[in-house]
């Protein structure tokens, strides 16, 4: 989503008249690097860069050539702005929920013994082994008016709740589906935190809670940032889960785009929506980078 247009460094870098063994060795290595990158770059060029350019062009293309009509349409109809708003609301909420649920889980996972960690990890990864569609249908059964939850509530005489075809359903389904991404990202950072830092903190007079707060939490922040970015990016473009578990008022942008392609066959308008989503998301991250600094993602450990 926020990949840059891949540059194609296929043309050999302008080699000056640099001679000498060292220079030629450096050149050999870089030509090998280029060679190894080539397949991926070609793939990206054909299946990513070209479609991307095509979408941009379509979003500006009308019957009479260049037009801003598609973008104008988005601004004219408040319903589309509302969809963008809902999309970001849901993505933000899901990110927050996965973080709240995933952080303690990853913490336990990182501190657990081999056996326990393996078991927890298996539970986390197990959900990946089943098709997302199947899992979403399973949620429909669980959340539905005659589903497990409502049967249980009625049995206890607590009435019933509507969890399907509304915002709750979307949030539950998406949080469930995206939780592993959050947990795995957090875990990769947390498992790299030397436990001796915590021992040192305890030795220096911090209770276990304060050791966590002053030492572990700050050191795990790169995982929080990374996991949140990943889940947010995936959430913004989510399709199947909101489509199946959401109601009419929980339409996310991907669903609207799909409708315009499938039903309206309006490629130009769908393209405009996609580009707006891309621009908004990128702008969001640039702002985030300004405020928090994405660099913290890459320079955490001493």
């Amino acid at each position, binding site marked *: 989503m926020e990949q840059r247009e891949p540059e194609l460094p296929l043309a050999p870098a302008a080699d000056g008249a640099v001679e000498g063994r060292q220079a030629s060795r450096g050149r050999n290595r870089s030509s090998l690097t280029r060679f190894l990158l080539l397949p991926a770059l070609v793939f990206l060029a054909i299946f990513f860069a070209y479609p991307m350019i095509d979408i941009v062009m379509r979003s500006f293309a009308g019957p009479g050539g260049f037009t801003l009509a598609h973008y104008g349409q988005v601004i004219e109809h408040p319903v589309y702005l509302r969809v963008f708003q809902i999309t970001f609301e849901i993505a933000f909420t899901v990110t927050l929920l996965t973080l709240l649920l995933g952080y303690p889980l990853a913490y336990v996972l990182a501190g657990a013994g081999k056996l326990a960690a393996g078991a927890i990890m298996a539970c986390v990864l197990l959900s990946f082994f089943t098709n997302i569609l199947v899992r979403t249908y399973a949620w429909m059964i669980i959340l539905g008016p005659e589903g497990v939850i409502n049967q249980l509530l009625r049995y206890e005489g607590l009435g019933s709740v509507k969890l399907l075809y509304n915002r709750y359903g979307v949030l539950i389904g998406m949080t469930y589906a995206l939780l592993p991404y959050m947990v795995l990202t957090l875990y990769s950072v947390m498992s790299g935190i*030397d436990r*001796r*830092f915590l*021992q*040192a*903190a*305890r*030795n*220096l*007079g*911090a*209770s276990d809670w*304060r*050791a966590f707060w*002053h*030492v572990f939490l*700050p*050191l795990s922040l790169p995982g929080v940032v990374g996991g949140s970015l990943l889940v947010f990016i995936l959430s913004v473009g989510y399709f199947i889960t909101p489509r199946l578990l959401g109601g009419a008022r929980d339409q996310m942008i991907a669903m609207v785009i799909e409708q315009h392609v499938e039903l309206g066959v309006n490629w130009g308008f769908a393209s405009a929506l996609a580009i707006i989503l891309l621009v908004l998301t990128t702008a969001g991250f640039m702002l985030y980078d300004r405020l928090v600094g994405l660099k913290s993602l890459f320079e955490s*450990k*001493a």
Partner: protein
Amino acid sequence: MAGPRGEGVARRGAPVRLQGLKKAYGETVAVRDVTLSVAAGEFITLLGPSGSGKTTTLMMIAGFVPESAGEIYIDERPIGRVPPERRELGMVFQSYALFPHMTVAENIAFPLRMRGWPRGEIRQKVAAALEMVKLPGYEERAPRQLSGGQQQRVALARAIVFEPRVLLMDEPLGSLDKKLREHMQAEIKRIQRQLDMTVIYVTHDQDEALTMSDRIAVMHQGRIQQVGSPTALYDEPINAFVADFIGESNFVGGTVISVDADGTAEVRHASGRVFRAAWHGSVQPGMSVVASIRPERLTLAAQGAADSPCNLWRGRISEIIFIGDATKYKIALEDLILTVKTQDRDLGAGARVGDEVGVRWSPAHTTLLHHAPDP
């Protein structure tokens, strides 16, 4: 329990006592029945190879590893149920464990912040601690900007800034090069004297243990083998492990022929050669024993008769090793190789591999050990 520093002066260090300390992980026993009294202000070293239980013992004192049995007393108070943060022990970790997300000043301030000290006082204390470890003005650096030796100093400053009465050190100099290590050894001793702390120091480096400690506890297979001053351990090791681990030693096995009233015993080696050794305790004719002789206690002797109280054996030089301040000669006797270490370079000036020489040593420097050396 009068330590070498027990002159009765009021001091800040606290006595530490380990009573029957044991740690078992399922079937494997890491520490078995460790009992040790450390006097207030004493510098004691737990010395042993990896897996000897020395670090586990230290971790039990610090409160990170729960003991399976036994009790730890600090200032004569049992601390088994006291959580690590309330034991008031300074600790320097092997890897320093400086918090990477904090500056040097924040690291050193951490124990004071946890104790709720006021800001201004913390600043003063941090500056004083940095002064003490000779890193003044390093407050705002990040740990990763420092060299290994500097990180070591910051870790030390952080461990002593809250004036603990006992300082634990887990192989603190392990990752420094030799020159820096020797320098830091002197620094640590200086600071220990200045603050008059009890120090429990863990290392596998016997030189470090010998130079720094008031007393050394040699550990092997989860047990304390021997506790004593560096000279006592070096001169009177009680078993082959200690003799071999602290310094180098020649081991000569044999059978006791006679025990004489002058404090020496006559021992016959398997080859039929006979030597005399000093004996303590119960040695009886017919016992098989192992004698330990330090290489520097052996001398090369030119042809000629032995002075009567000395042992003199003959052999051939099989190897000459120059190690700078001394020279080692490996002397091959039929079924035995003795190592001779001498600082007198004139002595062996003309000696060459293959020459026949005499090896002479005094019975007084021949220690009979209780146990046979491990293979």
